[in-house]
């Protein structure tokens, strides 16, 4: 019996078609994976099922009845629960209190009663958790179990897990899989969103592969190999590289990362012995599904995050642990990943442009407004920024904001350019402009480290591609050797080429 049927679901966000006539069926009692890269449409589809988005067209049926899901409340009432990567937990409260929050109608909160009730639910579903524990003291894996318990406590029959292993250490992953097995036996149906092939093949019964908003295929896990899945996930019509074919120029290393290690905000290792070299006049693209350490890699190189071990060198000079301003002086062109956080929205375009190089426009502490104006005007023209110098940055479009950042960085002729997600959220013309700029810089001889979750972008721009998976570089290859299979296997952790 199909407990959930999603038929011809289409969802647009502006110009982007996130889900394109997607058909998805979930059998009762199965674990079904949704596999695909970033932007494939997996999370969008599930958010539609959970009532966070409304589809533009299509039908959803739960237990063969057509339903309209306006909000998570409706979804919960239909027996659908979702666990995302951002837990909605209140740390100082106990597990039991978190589980019952919003689910109780009584005035009095009987601690013993809720603890027993939650303990019983946990027993029934085979989830090991202490209802009296304070969430703040729990590990990430345990917190995830609380989130799962929350859904089950509300009588979920369908459980959606969005990249559940992204935040877990290996032992916790095993524990999670045990729990999922147990839930299957209890008759629950599980949808497992993932980009990690080995997990998908380990735990699931069927897999639906999405790419660019469309379903590539739905297969039984037992009937398919990892290579085939990888190809489905990543395969494209045009798998060529659209970059001028200049042979590798003078092989002068400009940026070197040597065994770089770093911890994330929870003090867990997120970069594990990352070693890379970027040469003069090349673009090295870091490919990988989001959440594998790309953000932290960019932060560490840009001086926002301190590495725990390893070295960063620019033209042989050790710049490990240096401050942002020192890095800029060393010739590192740092583009922030989030342009809304990387620009001071309430300052003018001019002010943001000069913010990184105030020393040059200051004499005895006083700003040389004339020089600043001149400089800003020049850059606005050169980079075709559609804004007046005194416009507040927050009134600019995303594309123009990105141009401001590019202007700030590229006008300095940096030796190295770090470009994390440079075209995220930009429209087509802005995206083309940014990519063009990067290519021009490459022509000029800069060493560019491009970090992008958009595989098309990586393929379009990179001379060489390095794949990052769970904080490690699992393979580096020249662009010409990047086949869908090979990349797919690397990006989904199925293979490590070191």
């Amino acid at each position: 019996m199909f407990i959930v049927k999603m038929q011809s679901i289409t969802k647009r966000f502006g110009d982007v078609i996130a889900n394109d006539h997607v058909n998805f069926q979930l059998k009762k009692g199965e674990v079904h994976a949704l596999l695909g890269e970033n932007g494939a449409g997996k999370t969008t589809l599930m958010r539609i099922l959970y009532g966070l988005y409304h589809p533009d067209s299509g039908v959803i049926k739960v237990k063969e009845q057509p339903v309209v899901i306006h909000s998570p409340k409706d979804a919960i009432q239909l027996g659908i629960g979702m666990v995302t990567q951002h837990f909605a937990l209140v740390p100082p409260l106990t597990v039991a209190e978190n589980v019952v929050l919003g689910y109780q109608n009584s005035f009095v909160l009987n601690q013993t009663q809720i603890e027993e009730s939650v303990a019983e639910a946990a027993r029934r579903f085979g989830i090991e958790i202490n209802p009296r524990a304070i969430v703040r003291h729990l590990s990430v894996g345990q917190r995830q179990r609380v989130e799962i318990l929350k859904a089950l406590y509300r009588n979920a029959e369908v459980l959606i897990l969005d990249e559940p292993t992204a935040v877990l250490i290996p032992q916790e992953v095993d524990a999670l899989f045990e729990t999922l097995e147990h839930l299957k036996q209890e008759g629950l149906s599980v949808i497992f969103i993932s980009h990690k092939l080995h997990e998908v093949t380990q735990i699931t019964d069927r897999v639906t592969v999405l790419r660019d908003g469309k379903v590539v295929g739905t297969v039984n896990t037992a009937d398919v190999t990892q290579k085939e899945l990888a190809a489905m996930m990543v395969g494209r019509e045009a798998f060529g590289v659209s970059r001028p074919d200049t042979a590798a120029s003078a092989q002068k290393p400009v940026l070197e990362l040597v065994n770089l290690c770093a911890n994330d905000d929870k003090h867990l290792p997120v970069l594990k012995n990352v070693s890379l070299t970027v040469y003069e006049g090349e673009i090295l693209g870091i490919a990988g599904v989001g959440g594998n350490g790309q953000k932290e890699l960019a932060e560490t190189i840009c001086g926002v995050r301190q590495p725990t071990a390893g070295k960063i060198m620019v033209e042989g000079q050790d710049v490990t642990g240096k401050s942002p301003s020192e890095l800029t002086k060393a010739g590192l062109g740092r583009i922030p990943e989030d342009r809304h956080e990387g620009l001071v929205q309430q300052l003018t375009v001019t002010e943001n442009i000069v913010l990184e190089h105030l020393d040059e426009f200051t004499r005895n502490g006083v700003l040389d407004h004339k020089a600043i104006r001149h400089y800003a005007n020049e850059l606005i023209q050169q980079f075709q920024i559609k804004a007046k110098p005194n416009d507040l940055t927050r009134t600019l479009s995303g594309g123009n904001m990105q141009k401001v950042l590019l202007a700030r960085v590229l006008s300095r002729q940096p030796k190295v350019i770090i470009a994390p997600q440079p075209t995220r959220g930009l429209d087509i013309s802005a995206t083309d402009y940014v990519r063009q700029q990067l290519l021009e810089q490459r022509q000029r001889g800069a060493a560019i480290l491009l970090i992008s979750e958009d595989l098309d972008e990586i393929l379009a721009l990179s001379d060489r591609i390095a794949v990052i998976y769970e904080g490690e570089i699992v393979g580096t290859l020249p662009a010409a050797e990047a086949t869908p299979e090979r990349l797919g296997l690397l990006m989904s952790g199925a293979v490590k080429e070191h």
Partner: protein
Amino acid sequence: MEAKRFPYQLVKTNTPPLWMRPLIPALILLTTFLITAGLILTAQVNPFQAYYYFLISPLSSQVSFLELLVKAIPLMLTGVAVTFAFATGYYNIGAEGQLYAGAIAAAWLGIVLGGLPPFLAIPLMIIGGFMAGMAWALIPALLKVRLAVDEVVTTLLMNSIMAYIVSALLNGPWRDPISGWPQSPEIAESTMFFKLIPRSRLHFGFIVGLVAIAVLWYVMTQTSFGLKMRAVGLGKTAAQFAGINVGRTTLIAALISGGIAGIAGVSEVAGIQYHLIGDLSAHYGYTGVIIATLGGLNAIGVFVASLFFGLIDTGAQTVSRAMGVPVYLGEFTQAVMLLVALGMYLLQRYRIVRRV
């Protein structure tokens, strides 16, 4: 408590409709004075007549106009002090205590520097007050920058502690030996702020206030430190990414803020009271927060706001004398103006939209 579906909701718009913008200050003033008129009516007095005495007549005579300026002096200084801090994102609510720190320094230096001629004594008084205010601002500032301890509560607590220090001084070593009053010995004549206009109350502090406003303008618009301050206040992450040392910038701004509040204390002692007394400040430190906010955290705004509040303070006294309306009308009006302004500035970024 279910999520009640209130039929209307506030939806944020990015920029308010253009026709609204010049209207806002007018709307604020109008609403404020409507509310205050309500209060005036409780005194069984004609509001229009009251408003004449409240807002117009202080401007009509020289004496009351000068009084307006006198009342504006401490507000200019605390307004500037708070602006330095708030603009950097450092919520210094401790201007009141820092003011008294400066006042203590002035009361002490006022005796010690007695032998010096005014052109030496007065600048030294000001410097001393600045350093005292800075010193009192140091602990909360360090706690914030090094240990991320919230500055609002610490600066507030420091205000209370300073009040006790002042009380201890005035009831102890600085109690007037002759009268027994809790007031410090009178400062030497050469340390007093001279009058700008003879036989009036307008003293040198007004010049100091103007200088402070000019310094605020200069630092904020012309110096690179000022740009760094604003960047930190408006976008800490971006500022840090761009290489600005957020901790250092915050610390310096906090100290400058304390110092200028200290100068406000010096001004009251050396320009008006000539002693340290317990009631030296009529909440100038807290009103400074209102002035800074209403002034939009910029020099011109602070200047206009302090003059306007000076007008309100003077006018409240005038209408009190002339019509028996209690003088506290002034404080009330100022607070109403702040709340109305806050409400309006935020309401203009929203539209009321029918919930789907």
